[in-house]
């Protein structure tokens, strides 16, 4: 991925990686804008469908192979699991990231101003093995993809 190559340089020039780190660091959003976009109901929703509905306006999504989720197959540390979502589609307005098995599944919503490359990264906390789900809103439609991430107690390697 392109932003990997200058990661160190990029990171040095941005705030520490947080949910909105990428967008803020790239100068696309100001913290005030982010706070204004805070969707309390969505982030506090307990059920996955409700969280998707509150975040994206509708619980029904169409699975899409144009969404790529990059996340480890087995998390090195469940407290900070790196996840990247890339959508190979036009007109992406938002990208929501949910963690299926968390008490509050919605972890992040990225609002992308027009012309922004739909490629976001963050880290999420995962209590147990389950899917991370990306919901992408593009051209008024909802698309989704999911990837399993295993959270293990570890040990006993050969």
């Amino acid at each position: 991925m392109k932003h990997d190559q200058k990661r160190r340089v990029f990171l040095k020039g941005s705030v520490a990686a947080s949910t909105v780190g990428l967008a803020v660091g790239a100068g696309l959003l100001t913290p005030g804008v982010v706070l204004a976009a805070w969707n309390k109901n969505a982030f506090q929703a307990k059920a996955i469908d409700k969280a998707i509905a509150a975040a994206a306006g509708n619980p029904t999504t169409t699975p899409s192979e144009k969404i790529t989720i990059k996340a480890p197959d087995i998390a090195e540390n469940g407290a900070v699991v790196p996840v990247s979502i890339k959508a190979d589609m036009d007109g992406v307005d938002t990208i929501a990231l949910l963690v299926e098995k968390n008490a509050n599944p919605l972890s992040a919503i990225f609002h992308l101003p027009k012309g922004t490359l739909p490629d976001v990264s963050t880290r999420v906390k995962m209590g147990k093995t389950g899917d991370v789900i990306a919901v992408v809103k593009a051209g008024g439609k909802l698309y989704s993809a999911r990837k399993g991430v295993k959270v293990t107690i570890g040990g006993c390697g050969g």
Partner: protein
Amino acid sequence: MSLSRREFLRLLGLAGAAGLLPVGSFAAARRPSDLYEIPRFGNLTLLHMTDCHAQLNPIYFREPSVNLGIGAAKGRPPHLVGKSFLQHYGLEPGSIEAHAFTYLDFEKLARKYGKVGGFAHLATLVKRLRAERGDGNTLLLDGGDTWQGSGTAFWTRGQDMVGACNLLGVDVMTGHWEFTYLEKEVIANIQQFKGEFVAQNVSVNEDALFDYAFADFEGFDEESGLAFKPYTMKVVGGMKVAVIGQAFPYTPIANPRRFIPDWTFGIQDERMQGLVDRVREKEKPDLVVVLSHNGMDVDLKMASRVSGIDVIFGGHTHDGVPAPVVVSNKGGKTLVTNAGSNGKFLAVMDLEVSKGRLKDYRYRLVPVFANLLPADAEMQAYIDKVRAPYKEKLEQKLAVAEETLYRRGNFNGTFDQVICNALREVKDAQISLSPGFRWGTTVLPGQEITLDNVMDQTCITYPETYRREMTGKDIKDILEDVCDNLFNPDPYYQQGGDMVRVGGMDYVCNPAEKMGRRISDMRLDGGTPIEAGKKYVVAGWATVSSQAPGRPIWDVVTEYLERHETIRIDKLNTPKLVGVQGNPGLGT
């Protein structure tokens, strides 16, 4: 048969992949007068060793009687044991190869054929092959798990092995247990290593990049964030060979992250594809190989997803696989090998390469029998020197084995049972847990058990023991978690160790079930059911998440052995298996 032996072996590899093996012809076609007479073929030779676990001296090593393949892996290499193994590869029962590759008649054949491995004997074999093939025509690859596994490796923090590998002339290596020393020790060891250390799947994590302690280390690349050189180019037999490294992807999960906080791993097969494509374009190599510590099932999956690799030389899962498995992918075919463990084997792949293409090859996984290969004097002198300060302590006799003591296999081995019994007795616990490592050497009946043997089974950099209360549910959760790391049908979710060993309890295991449903009917040794809500006193060692409070496991085992003098296993806490009857990975 008009087919040459090596041509036959090549076809055997293909047939093995297709499950079409001609029974019996393997042994017939290769009855060498000398086990080590390996005719030259092609224009370059890649020698591969892996997972020697710091065994400088010859040892005994019993191959597993249980190595189950679940789902698509059922009955397919490397998940074959005993008779199924002999039949698949056409090996003659009782032959030296049958002994090298299987557990059958282990005690009798071990006495007949003697010890295996040992760096002085391996050095003789490597020198012979190099001389036969001529200067510049060979490359020696080491897949890692080299700096850990013996008392001397532990006490010298891996440095005895760096010296031994330099003397042996290892050209390229990658790692896994190498990363269980502290970061600064890893870096220092690599700097002392005269070959090259490669790993495309180890990055410096984003927090550490702000102020990285090893920014001056030559393997580190600030642009890519990779902690080590991802690949190296070598000229062998006049051909340009790219060797890409793949370290064990789950090191910070299977082993303590606290020793290596700056580094992050993972399989990274997309990065691998990008690297292969880039190397092919930029370096114009004649051959691209991966030196991998993924484990064989992960390598087989990776080979199906990544194209452009000619050969993956694999390790980690300690599978002695006599012929490469041929995997098809969208770019063509990739050969996948696995070369056993504990210094027992040297893989010899002769290749015919020209104009950027692998045309043909011959492969032999050669067992290193110490009685058949004289010790190399220079290497033996080195080994004697590094052992000298510890020799007396290591060779101290602690007890006598009354039966074969071994570890390798999916469930409790007899040496594991000794460790589990020691934990229960010395630490006064109802139940004990011991990690399912795949290293650890074997002791024959009548043999004295020495501290060398105990260290072979236990010497890790997080050896501290614990004694604590756990509920029945806690114990089940641990068993389920480890069982999924072993039997998850998707290899990318496996870690490559064996099942956690237990003492003082039994259970029923259904490997083909889903996570959370494989373990049932847990009972204490007396038959009392283990209740989910009830608390039990559990002793164990090798905690990954944080340092345990108790003394090192080898102290506990040593105390137990000295108390008992003779060691016999009255009860092996191996689970009752369900749903795997007839599985070729289960010995009969």
